[in-house]
């Protein structure tokens, strides 16, 4: 079976601290793979290894094998690699100097998704619809992101990521800083995408994980302590850490 992402014995050191320890996982194509764990366990670092955003930190060192879409991610050109991988961050970060339209269009332009202006408009519209934001912004595409609510900004960022037409989408606690209504819309958008895109999501929220996940990995102190199909993890967690995490005790 082919996997969208494969990690084998991955170790990450930042400032000589051992952050990720012998991580091995396989993410099947077109599934939602959720990574859970307490704060500081290395979840975000794990996501950043997949799209090599970890390289932004000059003091980070990654060892092991990371295969993304069959490419050897650690040896591949990071800019080319990132063109296949969209990412949504914990805090919404639309580009403040660009209009709503341009925020989405820029991702399509950079990745040569559209051939002309008409194509570009269609891609922007498609991405905003997929992010469940089109109806709210279709009459104000030339407004700036500061005129949107936090949840709308996050969905705009989702639209920006989708406009790249990525094969993989990384979501780093995307609903952590937004209200429940927007969180629900974002969740619906994620579920609607899972047949087209491989999604890797970090979350603190076991209920959210249960709603969206096909597979789950539980990470604690830089190690994966349990992983498998979501039904198995949620119904019969075998480790004490997983049980505590799912009960919300850690």
């Amino acid at each position, binding site marked *: 079976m082919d996997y969208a992402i494969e990690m084998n014995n991955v170790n990450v050191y930042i400032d000589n601290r051992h952050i990720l320890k012998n991580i091995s996982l396989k993410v099947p194509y077109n599934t939602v793979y959720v990574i859970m764990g307490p704060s500081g366990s290395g979840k975000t670092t794990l996501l950043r290894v997949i799209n090599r955003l970890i390289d932004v930190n000059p003091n980070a060192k990654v060892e092991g094998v990371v295969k993304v879409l069959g490419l050897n991610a650690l040896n591949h050109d990071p800019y080319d690699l990132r063109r296949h991988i969209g990412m949504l961050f914990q*805090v919404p*970060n639309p*580009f403040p100097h660009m209009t709503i339209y341009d925020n989405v269009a820029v991702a399509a332009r950079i990745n040569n998704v559209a051939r002309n202006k008409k194509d570009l408009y269609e891609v922007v519209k498609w991405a905003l619809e997929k992010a469940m934001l089109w109806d709210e912004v279709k009459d104000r595409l030339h407004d700036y992101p500061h005129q949107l609510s936090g949840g709308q900004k996050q969905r705009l960022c989702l639209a920006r990521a989708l406009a790249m037409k990525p094969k993989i989408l990384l979501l780093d606690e995307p609903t952590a800083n937004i209200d429940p209504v927007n969180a629900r819309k974002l969740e619906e958008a994620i579920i609607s995408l899972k047949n087209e895109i491989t999604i890797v999501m970090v979350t603190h929220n076991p209920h959210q994980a249960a709603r969206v996940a096909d597979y789950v990995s539980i990470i604690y102190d830089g190690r994966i302590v349990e992983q498998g199909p979501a039904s198995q993890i949620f119904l019969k967690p075998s480790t004490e850490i997983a049980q505590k995490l799912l009960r919300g005790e850690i």
Partner: protein
Amino acid sequence: MYSWRKLKDRLFLALVLAISIVAIAPLIHLIIVTMLNGFSVILNAGLGFFTENPPTPTSKNVGGIAPSLVGSILLTALSLPITVFIALFASIMAVEFPNNPLSIAVDVVAKSLASVPTIVVSMVVYLLVVVPMGRFSILAGAIALTIVSLPYTYTYFSTYLRSVPTTYREAAFAIGMSRWRAVINVSLPIIRRGFLVTILMTMARILGETAALLFTVGRYRTGVSFSVLSPSDAIPLLIFDYILTPYKVFQEVAWGAATLLLIAYLIIFIVAKFVIKEVRL
């Protein structure tokens, strides 16, 4: 208890107000004195103040400052783009590639240059440019001005670039932008106000610098020179020379030139402060 707190609050406010007045009083005094002395000179001279040559000591009319004005404009036109280009490139290197040996070297050189007296820069440029060329020139003056302005422009640019939240840069990388493209498409537009303010401040510094021009530009005031390879003059040099002479007509020209410089500064300040809009994060 409440009234004592209120009294303390008011006393502190009064103290802050008094200190602020003391701090800005010299500036206001300088503006008023310069305007009072120089504005009437410009008004009396009319358009000729901008188009004629300076007077002789025995002249009845103040004439104008055309050679110095043209010199200042040429010096700024030559020095400003070079300074901005080098400083911007260096600050991008320093911020985006902080561990690169070239970035570290640039940072050290820029910080060291800031502490070199500007008159020393003028002497070095005299030895390296004026002597081999065999004459003073706008080019030599512009090189000196560039060296003097670079550390300030670099510091401003790098401070503004560092102020861009990492999250926007990461968002740019995440959609496939390279570091350079992220700087051009994201960081620079976000700091556009700081970017333009830095250019204006550099312009103000170049326009007002005197010592760097002492041994480089020449003080040629008997005619207007448009060649960058010929000697010329600059407004601050003219003020420096004329205000110290015993001739009233020269002193009047100096006040008029100082007023012109001050007006230029005020325009730059107003544009920087009120016209250029900040990006709302």
